[in-house]
């Protein structure tokens, strides 16, 4: 089945400040005791959102103005730590379709692209502008233009970055590589037979 071609993502955005937001924070390990990814959206940033007694903390994700956000803006080195795909899955299942940050940890980046969720890099100063726009205009649309590598908001259009390979796979709908990988049967078999170890 052909995958969706993702040339842009648009929607409301939310700003979750902080650098080095790790995957344990995105989804605490205790919620990974599951055999499917279903329902993970509920536990996104759980310990940032709730106190130990279950009452709500002050957190952008608890702010009703941002309840429909589908684009997350954050700091640098987003998604560092473990390889758990549970982290991008929980974002995706909570309704997010793109993340904008200073830069991303490698495994998180790859896992997100695999889900068709662009991870866009934006320098500090531009992120600060976007952050204040979001705070002041919670219901305004932000557009992540994957095709032209631009982020559009408030009538302005600022350049952003996305690794070329990832961009291409989003644009041509090959972000999930499984079909292409399955296609190379013979050369795979050749390497399998050539390697001294099984």
């Amino acid at each position, binding site marked *: 089945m052909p995958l969706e071609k993702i040339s842009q993502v648009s929607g409301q955005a939310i700003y979750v400040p902080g650098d*080095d937001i790790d995957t344990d924070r995105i989804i605490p*390990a205790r919620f990974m005791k599951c055999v499917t*990814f279903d329902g993970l959206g509920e536990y996104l940033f759980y310990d940032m959102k709730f106190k130990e007694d279950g009452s709500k903390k002050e957190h952008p994700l608890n702010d009703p103005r941002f309840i429909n956000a589908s684009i997350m803006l954050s700091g640098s*080195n987003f998604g560092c*730590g473990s390889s758990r*795909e549970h982290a991008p899955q929980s974002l995706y299942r909570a309704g997010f379709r793109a993340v904008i940050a200073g830069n991303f940890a490698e495994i998180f980046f790859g*896992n997100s692209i695999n889900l068709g969720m662009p991870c866009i890099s934006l320098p500090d100063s531009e992120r600060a502008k976007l952050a204040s726009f979001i705070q002041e205009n919670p219901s305004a649309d932000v557009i992540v233009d994957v095709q032209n590598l631009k982020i559009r908001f408030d009538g302005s259009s600022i350049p952003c970055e996305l690794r070329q*390979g990832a961009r291409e796979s989003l644009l*041509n709908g090959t972000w999930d590589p499984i079909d292409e990988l399955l296609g190379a049967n013979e050369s795979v078999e050749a390497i399998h037979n050539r390697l001294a170890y099984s």
Partner: protein
Amino acid sequence: MMKRNLFEKVWDAHAVGQLQNGQTQLFVGRHLIHEVTSPQAFGMLREKSLPVRYPERTFATVDHIVPTNETQEPYSDPLADAMIKELRKNCQDFDVTFFDVDTGKQGIVHVVGPEQGLTQPGMTIACGDSHTSTHGAFGAIAFGIGTSQVRDLLATQTMALGKLKVRRIEVNGSLNPGIYAKDVILHIIKLLGVNGGTGFAYEYAGEVFDSFSMEERMTACNMSIEGGARVGYVNPDAKTFDYLKGRPYSPQDEDWDKATSEWASFASDEGCQYDDLVKIDASEIGPTVTWGINPSQAIGIDETIPDSTGMGEKEKASIDEAIEYMKITPGAPIKGTPIDVAFIGSCTNGRISDLEEVARQLGGHKVKEGVKAIVVPGSQVVSKLAEAKGLDKIFREAGFEWRFAGCSMCLAMNPDKLIGDQLCASSSNRNFKGRQGSPTGRTMLMSPIMVAAAAITGVVSDSREVFSS
């Protein structure tokens, strides 16, 4: 012939071809799986009615969720119990070898692979776990992957990956007494930062790595990912081969000599190119302890907790956030910080040599009253070896609990957890907020011997002082 480094040689030997998006389709010769990141992948296979392409290339174990204080199933935690049963079923259905708890081979995946001889030089190895970099200690290219890629490997034995750059990190000179591999890697991360390694494979080299044992090399490679590098490796040498000789999955008899000469050929060529080179003087490395909430927030045991006054806005924010979370005082010495829990174990420091080294120094000392101290062997093989040497007795007599193998208190997926804002001196690899199970729990990373010193004195201490007498 062009001179190549190990990463390039192994990569080239496993590259199937180029994909449409420019990435490489890479053959992964050895695939390791565990209960947390594989069930969804098997689910995806079933959905697509795909078989496992080469089941003989995948090996499974169970580590994250296994309780370390009970062995009887059903486990008291029904979710954990469901996870082990799901893995068992998946391995049966798809014909995958499973080192189940009754085999005597179960343990943390990154301890099990090497000790079974599954991890060998020149291999590509992947596992749905970021600490897969550990296996690089043998001169393999080993990386952590997500669950969709676990599916890709099960279905095709290949995955899509962009080639990494290679940074050689040489640590030369000799380490001062009482300094361990853990201090070396914490020092490297402190120098290069938590995302300094993004886009790179780290080649560790120099006199210190040459003289390291295989287990010390594993400790260092293990934490490559804490420095942002997905892959870390050491070139294979005679020590590598010695370690592997006679292991269950190592080449046997007449295959052995052939294997070692092939393995040796993967080592980086003298005079080959690197994308970057970092040189570190071993004598500068002291006992290193983390004070903050990421592994680069580390200082020497004689240093003081940073004070953000006068720093740039960004740096100040990150230091202040860490200090607030850790409930420590800027400018205060780290030495003397009271601890509540001491944890020796994990895929970083739960191997036999770690336990031997602590046990060797522990004699006669007792864990401070009020401190909960646990030792968790990294695998059943490690447990058995340690028990045969009487190490369990030494630990018990000193006041440590001696547990069954597993990830235990490294992360919060089993009953071993911090409570409230307890502070844990831990030989594991991550000090993220909430990592050890309590959303307000605090972690200080250090070497196992430093954990033992903290357990005995009840405060963060210099092991060289505690164990000198």
